[in-house]
């Protein structure tokens, strides 16, 4: 089973890297050892098979969501990591997924 958290935005640079860093530092603070990577949304279908958790910044289209479900990849909204709003619930879900 794949074991990696990916964060995808429109270019795989600014926003996804920011959110990935934020998640990484939260993991580090709690001693959670889990790979985190920022990726380009345009290559999301190639990235999903090697992922277990998908945090989206760019809105995923239906095909991507179906593929994630088929592969058993958990999907979370990433924007709360930028705005701070509702981030605790999402982060808790992610942490639970890292323990699977």
């Amino acid at each position, binding site marked *: 089973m794949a074991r990696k958290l990916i964060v995808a*935005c*429109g*270019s795989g*640079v*600014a*926003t996804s*890297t*920011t959110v990935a*860093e*934020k998640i990484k530092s939260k993991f580090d603070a709690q001693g959670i050892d889990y790979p985190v990577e920022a990726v380009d*949304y345009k290559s999301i279908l190639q990235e999903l098979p090697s992922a277990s958790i998908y945090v*989206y*910044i*760019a*809105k995923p289209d239906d095909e991507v969501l179906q593929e994630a479900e088929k592969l058993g990849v958990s999907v979370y*909204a*990433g*924007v709360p990591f*930028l*705005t*701070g*709003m509702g981030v605790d619930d999402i982060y808790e879900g992610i942490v639970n997924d890292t323990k699977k």
Partner: protein
Amino acid sequence: MSTQQMFQPKLIDLNVAVQNEEELFELIAERLQQAGYVNSGYLEGIKNREKGFPTGLITEYLNIALPHSDTEYVERPFIYVTRTTKPIRVKQMGDNQEMEVRDLFFLGIKDPSKQVGLLQELMVLFQNEAFVSEFEKTTENEGVFNLFINQWEEVKHG
């Protein structure tokens, strides 16, 4: 280049009279190109980018948007701060829902590994209620410049 160096008083305009996002993009793209910060592909780059991957954010205290293009259109890193005279419609990052915004920050990211701190630092500021209320009250370009610089000095020196 540090975030502070990207901030410049001449790259702040708090009285932008435009009707919509497209007019704003055209205006700012022209200014940025004339000042040598972006190349001729920037306007199309930012329009296409925003269409596919919008950047509006509803934060706790303020609606903002962070339009940015792919790095190939940026000649020199920058941040351009704009406030429109009336709200314009943009779409939200993450779910593409419509929202209204007056405060837009154009991020000129040339080298993501060097400028990725910028977005992080901005988001920290916009979760700070005291900062946001001060920012909203400030109507002079120079005032906003000083506000950001002072804030970062405080962060740096604890």
